[in-house]
């Protein structure tokens, strides 16, 4: 006869405010096998946990039900509590009286009845719990960081400096991410390249870090401590072992193509490094635009004009590093932990018809302005109007383009635009004292350290005119851009003849972040930002053990937060990899050999190939579970008609007793 202890929590007034806790305790006492029932103000507090431990000892309890908040919050906490009192941590069940009861129902009588039912179900389930013992599983002490922006770089450096091997995978030919496209950084106006490039070099030279640029993660298998990742290394057509990065090839390459790095404002060659300080500082060949590749394709189809055979880079390369026969290659590597730092991309403002839908060349995005202001940019730092390369005098900034706007499906605030617009206003005034900046804004959000002061400086020292209101239309009137807006503080329409309009475009999740999330089995929200395990308490972890997320891939974030996030994720990985072995989750499937008829429906449905074939003494071939691969989803249990396979922690008996106690109450 087991003795079950039920501990009902007030959670301050969160539960006690609606649910009549004493009534629940009384009802619990009357339930079968319940030997002890009590209530606590805060069961998760030290006092609360102490009362559980004492009750276990004094009342000789062998099973515990905690009726409090969601098991997703404190199941582990209470498992540790009962473990310290000498009880197997899995002889515990949590009844959700807060998120699923008191917080969503106002009728106290019905909420209490529901609470009692939830406790009754928990008691019925815990009565069928058995002691479970986690197993130790080997661990690959290697980490994979996906995304070579500042967040990924920071995470990789921290993990590597803790002595673990790191592979950093970057989709572009060079690491650096969005930050490498910036000119200055707020609020300190540090030059972005000056603070980023050293870290990029560190990443390239760090003995523990293997940098796989121009590569993408294709598939991820396995589980925490034992991930197996297929990485696609795209064909560079250049042998980076022999290439010294002397630059002859990209200086002589005849094919000029618009540069993605410069966001269409500048050009690059077919064989190129995206920007001067690129790391690795060795080029890749753009297969679409390389003249020789076009020539090769032409030879197969023989249509249209015969393109030149070119191969100039091959002729001029001092180290003969051009390797036309190079193929893309998939390498499969084992890792213990994964960090996703895939960063963000800026909002495509061409959806705004009222701002010219991308037709007016002098209406540019803020990142394009960064390129114009950058010394390594297409105009070597001279801010010129893309239409006629003249110096703009009146510059209009429009805030919240693709942020805080339901019409384009981006209701969230991108957090950093107010700050970089203030930076732009300050820097532009420094570049050219005659510049007059106007900023159309809804609210200025400058919530970081020294941020508000920085934003004030843009208005007080740099003379930027901040107009609270939205711009209704921009149209080209001869050489100038007419900006029709409104200053809602004085309630008057405003019209500005602008030489240059800069749209403060918001932040979005990077390209096909959803596909990567699905590969990693982590969830993402409707904007494709990755969902962290808990927004407040576990910001860099995810639902999947061993997969961590950091930086702007999780949500709009500025550089200081991204770096902090990168280090936080690294700390989590270091914590994980510092253990010699991992304790697996014991909630795995188990086969009853006498009942299995060997139809292997379980093997057909198991997503993790965790079902193996085993021959019994009397020659029958039956199923058996590889517990290190089994993730405890339970698909096999439902597929098994004779009920030969069961799932620890959610056994058929436990779930059935929950239903039976509910319907036969």
């Amino acid at each position: 006869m087991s003795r079950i202890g039920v501990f009902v929590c007030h959670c301050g007034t969160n539960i006690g405010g609606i649910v009549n806790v004493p009534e629940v305790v009384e009802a619990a006492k009357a339930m079968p096998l319940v030997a002890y029932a009590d209530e606590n103000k805060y069961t998760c507090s030290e006092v609360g946990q102490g009362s559980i431990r004492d009750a276990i000892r004094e009342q000789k309890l062998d099973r515990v039900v905690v009726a409090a908040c969601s098991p997703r919050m404190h199941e582990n906490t209470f498992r540790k509590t009962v473990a310290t009192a000498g009880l197997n941590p899995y002889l515990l069940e949590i009844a959700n009286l807060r998120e699923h009861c008191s917080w969503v129902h106002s009728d106290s009588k019905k909420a209490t009845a529901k609470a009692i039912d939830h406790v009754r179900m928990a008691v019925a389930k815990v009565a069928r719990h058995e002691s479970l013992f986690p197993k130790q599983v080997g661990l690959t002490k290697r980490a994979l960081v996906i995304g070579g922006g500042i967040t990924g770089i920071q995470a990789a450096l921290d993990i590597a400096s803790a002595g673990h091997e790191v592979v950093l995978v970057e989709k572009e030919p060079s690491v650096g991410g969005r930050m490498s496209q910036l000119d200055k950084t707020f609020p300190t106006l540090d030059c972005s390249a000056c603070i980023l490039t050293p870290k990029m070099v560190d990443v390239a030279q760090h003995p523990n870090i293997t940098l796989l640029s121009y590569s993408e993660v294709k598939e991820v298998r396995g589980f925490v401590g034992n991930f197996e990742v297929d990485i696609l290394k795209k064909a560079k057509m250049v042998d980076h072992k022999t290439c010294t990065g002397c630059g002859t090839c990209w200086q002589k390459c005849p094919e000029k193509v618009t540069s993605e790095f410069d966001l269409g404002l500048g050009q690059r060659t077919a064989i190129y490094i995206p920007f001067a300080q690129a790391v690795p500082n060795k080029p890749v060949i753009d297969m679409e635009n390389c003249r020789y590749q076009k020539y090769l394709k032409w030879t197969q189809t023989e249509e249209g004009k015969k393109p030149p055979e070119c191969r100039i880079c091959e002729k001029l390369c001092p180290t003969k590093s051009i390797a036309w026969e190079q193929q893309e290659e998939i390498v499969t590597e084992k890792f213990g932990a994964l960090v996703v730092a895939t960063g963000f991309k800026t909002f495509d403002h061409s959806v705004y018809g009222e701002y010219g839908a991308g037709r007016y060349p002098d209406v540019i995005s803020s990142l394009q302005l960064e390129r114009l202001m950058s010394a390594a940019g297409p105009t070597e730092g001279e801010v010129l109007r893309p239409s006629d390369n003249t110096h703009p005098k009146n510059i209009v900034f429009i805030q919240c383009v693709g942020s805080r706007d339901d019409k384009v499906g981006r209701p969230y605030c991108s957090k950093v635009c107010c700050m970089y617009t203030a930076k732009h206003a300050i820097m532009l005034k420094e570049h050219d004292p005659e510049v007059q900046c106007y900023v159309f804004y809804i609210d200025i959000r400058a919530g970081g350290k020294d941020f508000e002061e920085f934003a004030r400086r843009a208005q007080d020292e740099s003379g930027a005119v901040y107009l609270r209101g939205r711009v209704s239309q921009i149209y080209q009137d001869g050489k100038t851009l007419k900006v029709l807006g409104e200053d809602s503080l004085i309630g008057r329409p405003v019209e500005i003849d602008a030489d240059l309009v800069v749209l403060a475009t918001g932040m979005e999740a990077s390209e096909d972040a959803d596909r990567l999330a699905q590969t990693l089995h982590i969830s993402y929200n409707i904007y494709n930002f990755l969902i962290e395990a808990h927004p407040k308490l576990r910001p860099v972890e995810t639902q999947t053990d061993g997969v961590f997320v950091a930086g702007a891939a999780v949500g709009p974030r500025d550089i200081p937060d991204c770096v902090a996030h990168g280090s936080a994720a690294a700390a989590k990985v270091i914590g994980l990899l510092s253990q010699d072995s991992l304790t697996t989750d014991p909630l795995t499937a188990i086969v009853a050999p006498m009942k299995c008829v060997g139809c292997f429906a379980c093997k057909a449905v198991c997503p993790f190939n965790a079902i193996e074939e085993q021959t019994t003494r009397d020659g029958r071939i039956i199923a058996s579970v590889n517990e290190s691969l089994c993730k405890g989803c339970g698909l096999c249990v439902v597929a098994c008609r004779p009920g030969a396979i069961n799932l620890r922690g959610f056994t058929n008996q436990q779930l059935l007793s929950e239903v039976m106690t509910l319907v036969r109450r």
Partner: protein
Amino acid sequence: MSEDNSPLVIGFLCNWCSYAGADMAGTSRQAYPPNIRIMRVPCSGRVDPLLIVKCFEEGADAVLVAGCHPGDCHYTEGNYHGRRRFALLRDLLDFMGIEKERFRIEWISASEGKRFAKVVSEFTDEMTKLGPRKVG
């Protein structure tokens, strides 16, 4: 049927998405009728048709199974299998006399707290209108 003959709805929620969605409904205080009793399962693929038929055999008025949106499953394929099982089961139950509307399947993600509250409210109202089970 509970005492005041408002319908008894039994909910099987997958731990990674729908149960978290229900938690989200809680944290954002999205009220919904208290008829539902929620059971946590690792995945919608763990919900056994035997359990669902047992609920109806024992007189439950309605069963809700909620899992991750196809493609989002924490175990990659759980809801795909679940979808097939429930599609077949729902037709069989309908054929046996349990109205199709009494067995509802929804894909609710971890961030759709409001939608969870809406689904439960709609479902409970629908069941109240449908009235008690006439046979068995």
